[in-house]
């Protein structure tokens, strides 16, 4: 079994109202000097294979087909 982590983030230039709200909330908690905050998603997956190349190819397909909306999001894949 291979464990993997997929991280999905908004592309540069895409407005992130939730990140903005978090940025404001951090400021109001007294955390000074926090620059831009961008919110993303993390997926931890378990894959029933020992073939790392296959796992990586499958994960890429999963991201393109479902986990990320590539109109607005980028993704990175990390195998444990």
């Amino acid at each position: 079994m291979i464990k993997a982590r997929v991280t999905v983030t908004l592309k540069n230039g895409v407005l992130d109202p939730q990140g903005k709200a978090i940025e404001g909330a951090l400021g109001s908690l007294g955390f000074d000097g926090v620059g831009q905050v961008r919110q993303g998603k993390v997926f931890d997956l378990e894959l029933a294979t020992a073939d790392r190349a296959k796992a990586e190819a499958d994960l890429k397909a999963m991201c393109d087909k479902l986990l990320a909306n590539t109109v607005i999001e980028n993704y990175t894949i990390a195998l444990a």
Partner: protein
Amino acid sequence: MKSAVVQLPGLNRDRDMIAALTKISGQAPVTVWQTETELPDVDLIVIPGGFSYGDYLRCGAIAARMPVMQAIKAKAEACVKVLGVCNGFQILLESGLLPGALMRNASLKFVCREVKLEVANAETDFTRAYEKGQIIRCPVAHHDGNYFADAETLAAIEGNGQVVFRYAQGTNPNGSINDIAGVMNAKGNVLGLMPHPENLIEAAHGGSDGRGLFASVLDVIAA
């Protein structure tokens, strides 16, 4: 006019849409469940609003991968008219049938109120009953209606007249880029919009400004 209304778990505006289509076309639409791979022979397919799959992952993301969407894509390619309202619009975007994406409202709040819409293109099969620049009333109810497209896509859809509805000046409820409320595909047979025209079709609704959208399609089909 023969029409079909798509049903998926979590969609809850299907009954409003069925009522509107029945009243305006005089013929009840057939309902199509998400697992269908063949669609009946209809003139118009509608994906109504709601919260398909609980809005998990992204609004419309999971619904857009259901078998029925492959069948809808095939029908859209064959020039059948497809309309997506609210969550239906989100599903059409997630399925790639329409350009762009819908993000969380800029206010971060769910908005449920009436807005004013400007008919930006009245030369479409969905808007010919209106006039260009006409301002109509229409209810909205959504949390993720903030339309976004990259600069290149935006220039293309603006240039091609694919922006069909805009929120009239000062009424943009969600931060949509260029006040965009509804877009169609390049071919002009697939339209998605966030507002709910099916909820403003008769006196009991307090107005009938939304009726023109369905009347336009009816008119095109009858011609």
